[in-house]
């Protein structure tokens, strides 16, 4: 339950404290969110598969967010930022979808 507690405290804290994101980082926030969602759905599926590992989860979350932001940053510097963010969103979106489908199969056996 400590995990759920952490998530709730994080959300409530974020909503009430409203931390200001530096202007330079703002373009990468949506991509970071998509990457975070990918890690979360992956973790949920791992829980249901019975192979969850907290270290793998945290590392994959942090790495996903950083790599996604880095790719988009690199793309921005090269002038192909929007194309690369599309690529990142497509790849992560497909992963989120298939993980969500696996979770659904676990929960509903369908």
């Amino acid at each position, binding site marked *: 339950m*400590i*995990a759920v507690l952490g*998530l709730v405290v*994080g959300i409530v*804290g974020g909503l009430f404290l409203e931390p200001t994101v530096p202007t330079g980082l*703002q373009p990468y926030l949506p991509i970071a969110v998509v990457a975070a969602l990918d890690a979360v759905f992956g973790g949920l*599926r791992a829980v249901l598969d019975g192979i969850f590992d907290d270290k*793998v989860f*945290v590392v994959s979350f942090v790495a996903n967010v950083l790599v996604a932001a880095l790719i988009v940053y690199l793309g921005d510097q090269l002038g192909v930022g929007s194309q690369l963010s599309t690529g990142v969103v497509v790849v992560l979106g497909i992963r989120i979808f298939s993980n969500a489908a696996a979770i659904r199969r676990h929960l509903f056996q369908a």
Partner: protein
Amino acid sequence: MQPRYDASMSLLTNLMDNSLDEGYAQAAARRPAGAGPRDWRRPGWLLLVGLLAVGLLLATAAAQARARASSTAETRSALVREVQARTTANDTLEKGLERDRAAVAATRRNALRLTSEGKALAARLATLEVVTGASPVIGPALVIHLSDAPSDGNNGADVDPRTGDAADGRLTDRDLQTVVNEVWASGAEAVAVNGQRLTALSAIRSAGDAILVDFRPLSPPYDIVGVGDAGAMRTSFLEGFGGSYLQALRDYGIDYSLSTKHSARLAESSGVMLRYADVPSGTETHK
């Protein structure tokens, strides 16, 4: 080995098949056999911190998106309010201007009525106002109705003049200029195109596919109204260059019709403004 039939989509297939991070499987494989999966409900500080970060990120993004949306809406509604306020202010000013103009005209009429010299001046003023388009004109009129050639499917009147594609049977600013000039030449005292009164300084031009009169876009069909001796104007127009020009236009499919009206009212030109004024010598100036 037979190549996979979906070999060309190996990237997508790989994405679909391996959507779960391989790290989980590797971590499970590293665990001593028989140890069983770790209980994920067991308190783990790492997990707590990780999920705290996830929650913080999601909430921050949500707050950010909400702030952006509300600031956009705020800007928009502020702009709308300003536009409305300025339009209202403009309308008020315009009404005030109309009132002042009427007052000036009345005062002038009264002042000029006093002397015979004034009466002559008033008559001259009235003539000039008609010619320059500063005052409305009522009288018999010659009306020329011009409409673009019907293009495939849609009538010229239905096409947005700004976006419709240029066709052969479309009236140009040159056509309109020629016809208007011929109407003047046949003896009109005042001319208006689609309700826009023409003055000596009016311009008929085109911008894109639209014809502008005094920088206001017109939409087809076009009505050219000339006030004057309607019967004589009609004869003179048809016998002159205007008649043959309209015939030539008809060859391109541009339809025209000529009619006379017993009474037409042309509004004053909106473009007339005071450009020059001085105080006649020998008059006392009011300070």
